[in-house]
């Protein structure tokens, strides 16, 4: 992502209200280009050479999918990026997406001993991208399917969890049907991840590449709870995997809350927009929340041309869900981060005009309003205060609002597994969803082939 050019703004760019076209095509292209541009072969060789090939490497321990990082880096270093990619895909079939979206600064790269040594870890994410890009460019799927088992598995949701599960099952010889509510597969890879992390339609290309193993059918527009039911799936298939993510959003408790828009939908619209110059955005934007979604909504608002963007988070910086890297990224794009403030009222008549925030402090471990307030001008308010599981089928146990699972995604129903954001436990990350989908597939396979 190039440094967004900040020259004197024009009248059009400063227009009040929620309007389109604050930035030219060229500015948009620049602003939404790759956050971490790909490494050239020589850069990759140099970056790979920094890896110490640690014993029982801490980076591997930190990776939710247990990719053998030192091995794949060594394969890059010896001039075998295809071999490196195979090492990655063996553990994580969405290694290409994970290379782009993983918060490596809190996973493998945080654990890297060179982070300890010199605060400059091996660039594991970019190296992973180098390897996976090389392999995916080769346009040949690296896995063959095992002999058909005659078993069929239904998967709900074509997000990272569902796709990882489907690929592994297909590879092991089972036939898979994915029911996906949306018109396109990919889940949040397609509809949620920030545009500058996955430019050039990578999400769709990766799904096509993944599906080229064969044996996986995706039925889009097919939602569980609508056209299909869990009971129906259980009757028609040998096993069911639920990977439907979190479809709902938490309600904002503040006066005028109905005027606040949902950040996730805003991002989905942004991701699906073919031309970002026609996507409207406010002049003064306030985002409520402190996680990755809040940061992504704020940064992308700024990149679309909003003049003032503020993230209002109710706790202190140290509690923020978004990593330090994400926070710094936001700050570098000109987003203002406000801590210890919660929304009191969204003001306006029909359309948003301002937002009143109340300062908070923690007393006896409880967050309390202090009574002081601040009012910010706003013409657009986004809420990014968490997603929720919706339409849970009967028969499943819940835990903390998510589907309770044990071990590799086993639910209360013997023939139903769950993984990804919809299942309890684990962080809500793409890579975690992949790991859970993969592990559930192995367990389903064991069950279907009588090994478990």
């Amino acid at each position, binding site marked *: 992502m190039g440094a967004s050019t900040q020259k004197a703004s024009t009248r059009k760019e400063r227009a009040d209200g929620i309007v389109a076209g604050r930035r030219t095509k060229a500015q948009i292209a620049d602003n939404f280009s790759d956050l971490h541009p790909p490494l050239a072969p*020589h850069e990759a060789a140099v970056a790979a*050479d920094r890896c110490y*090939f*640690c*014993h029982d490497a801490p980076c591997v321990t930190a990776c939710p999918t247990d990719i053998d990082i030192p091995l794949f880096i060594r394969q890059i270093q010896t001039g075998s990026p295809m071999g490196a990619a195979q090492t990655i895909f063996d553990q994580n079939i969405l290694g290409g997406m994970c290379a782009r979206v993983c918060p490596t600064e809190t996973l493998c790269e945080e654990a890297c*001993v060179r982070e300890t*040594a010199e605060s400059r870890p091996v660039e594991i994410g970019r190296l992973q991208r180098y390897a996976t890009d090389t392999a995916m460019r080769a346009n040949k799927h690296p896995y063959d399917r095992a002999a058909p088992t005659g078993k069929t598995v239904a998967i709900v949701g074509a997000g990272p969890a569902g796709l990882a599960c489907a690929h592994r099952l297909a590879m092991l010889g089972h036939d898979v049907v994915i029911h996906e509510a949306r018109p396109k597969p990919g889940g949040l890879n397609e509809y949620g991840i920030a545009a500058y992390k996955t430019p050039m339609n990578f999400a769709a290309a990766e799904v096509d590449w993944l599906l080229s193993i064969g044996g996986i059918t995706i039925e889009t527009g097919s939602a569980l709870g609508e056209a299909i039911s869990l009971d129906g799936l259980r009757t028609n298939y040998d096993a069911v995997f639920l990977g439907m993510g979190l479809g709902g959003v938490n309600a904002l408790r503040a006066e005028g809350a109905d005027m606040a828009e949902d950040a996730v939908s805003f991002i989905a619209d942004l991701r699906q927009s073919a031309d970002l110059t026609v996507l409207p955005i406010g002049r003064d934007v306030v985002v409520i929340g402190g996680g990755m979604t809040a940061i992504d909504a704020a940064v992308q608002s700024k990149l679309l041309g909003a003049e003032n963007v503020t993230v209002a988070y109710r706790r202190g910086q140290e509690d923020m869900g978004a990593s330090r890297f994400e926070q710094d990224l936001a700050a570098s794009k000109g987003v203002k981060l406000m801590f210890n403030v919660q929304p009191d009222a969204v003001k306006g008549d029909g359309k948003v005009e301002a937002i009143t925030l109340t300062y908070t402090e923690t007393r006896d471990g409880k967050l309390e309003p202090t009574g002081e307030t601040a009012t910010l001008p706003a013409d657009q308010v986004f809420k990014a205060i968490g997603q929720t599981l919706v339409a849970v089928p009967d028969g499943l146990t819940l835990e903390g609002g998510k589907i309770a699972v044990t071990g590799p995604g086993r639910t209360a129903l013997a023939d139903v597994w769950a993984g990804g954001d919809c299942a309890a436990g684990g962080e809500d990350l793409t890579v975690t969803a992949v790991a859970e989908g993969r592990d559930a597939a192995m367990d389903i396979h064991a069950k279907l082939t009588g090994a478990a």
Partner: protein
Amino acid sequence: MADLTTDFLGIKSPNPFWLASAPPTDKEYNVRRAFEAGWGGVVWKTLGEAGPPVVNVNGPRYGAIYGADRRLLGLNNIELITDRPLETNLEEIARVKADYPDRAVIVSLMVPCEEASWKAILPRVAETGADGIELNFGCPHGMSERGMGAAVGQVPEYIEMVTRWCKENYDKPVIVKLTPNITDIRYPARAAHAGGADAVSLINTVSSITSVNLDNFSPEPMIDSKGSHGGYCGPAVKPIAMNMVAEIARDPQTAGLPISGIGGVTTWRDAAEFMSLGCGNVQVCTAAMTYGFKVVEEIKAGLSRWMDEKGFTSTSDFVGRAVPNVTDWQYLNLNYVAKARIDQDLCIKCGRCYAACEDTSHQAIAMNPGRVFEVKDDECVACNLCIDVCPVEDCITMERLAPGTVDPRTGKVVEAEYANWTTHPNNPSAQAAE
């Protein structure tokens, strides 16, 4: 600033850094620029007999070995001696020497192993006013197939014979340049000494194949799908060269024979190391070919700063200082007992020491919970491998066990006295200590 002026065989130069006989010294244009850049002397690219000059290949003549970031670690070449007419070279040498009287100009020679050939060329070299000659008995490729270069350098009798002819027919210093492509470097050095050589210089290049093209299945550099072995030089050959230098420096039969050190000299430190092993000066080729003539600035500044720090005022203060400490294995003190020590504050927990020791050494490092690595004194033999593989400088060090303490590995008390293999009870031919 320490004085870098050197006197080698009576040849004075403003610093001990000469360019070795090779492309950097191939012609007047280069040598003038080298002198302007600050080099103390040059050994002119090897001259052959009068008549039609040799021809080089018209395809690639170099191959390389790289470290990280394409740092050139080793260079391989199949270049021959000068491919320019003798007359041209001699005229240029005379002109350059006249213009740079304070710099050393040595002429490298390689002619057939017949006295007449040497008698023919030596007076012509003398006429140039050059400060001395270097006999190229080292080139391992091409010329050796024609009975010259390494073909002579590998036969001590020829070395002695040719050296003697030169001493008889030329009255300035004669340096004999040795090939490393031989089992014991002391024999050619002794032969040169016996023939009356004023000095030896070493090493010339090491016979090598740097890489194989895995598509054409041919060695690189590849000429029309074929390759031939070349001569290896650059940083990779420095350890080989230094050992050979030290062998000659401490050989009683060649004691006092001046040495010009060559092979991988790239930095001031390399130069200081060669000189401490007994070299009166050093010659440089690959470093100049990699970085250009300007590298000499770092070599000069670095050596001079180091000399100041050490309180040395002249290079003779440290030339040969390390020679008495080069000994045979049998004389190493077996009562010197050390243990590895890991500095937990510096440790970054990569575990390389553990993998190396556990898989390939003495299983003397424990990996404790939390990736805390600790040396097991009862297993550690102080082999140094952990230090060698540790990416953090000074994180692991060797600590000598004080005499009187018990070595937990052997259960024996560490003795204060020096005792070596020659007196060790396990040695069948041990002599009782006096």
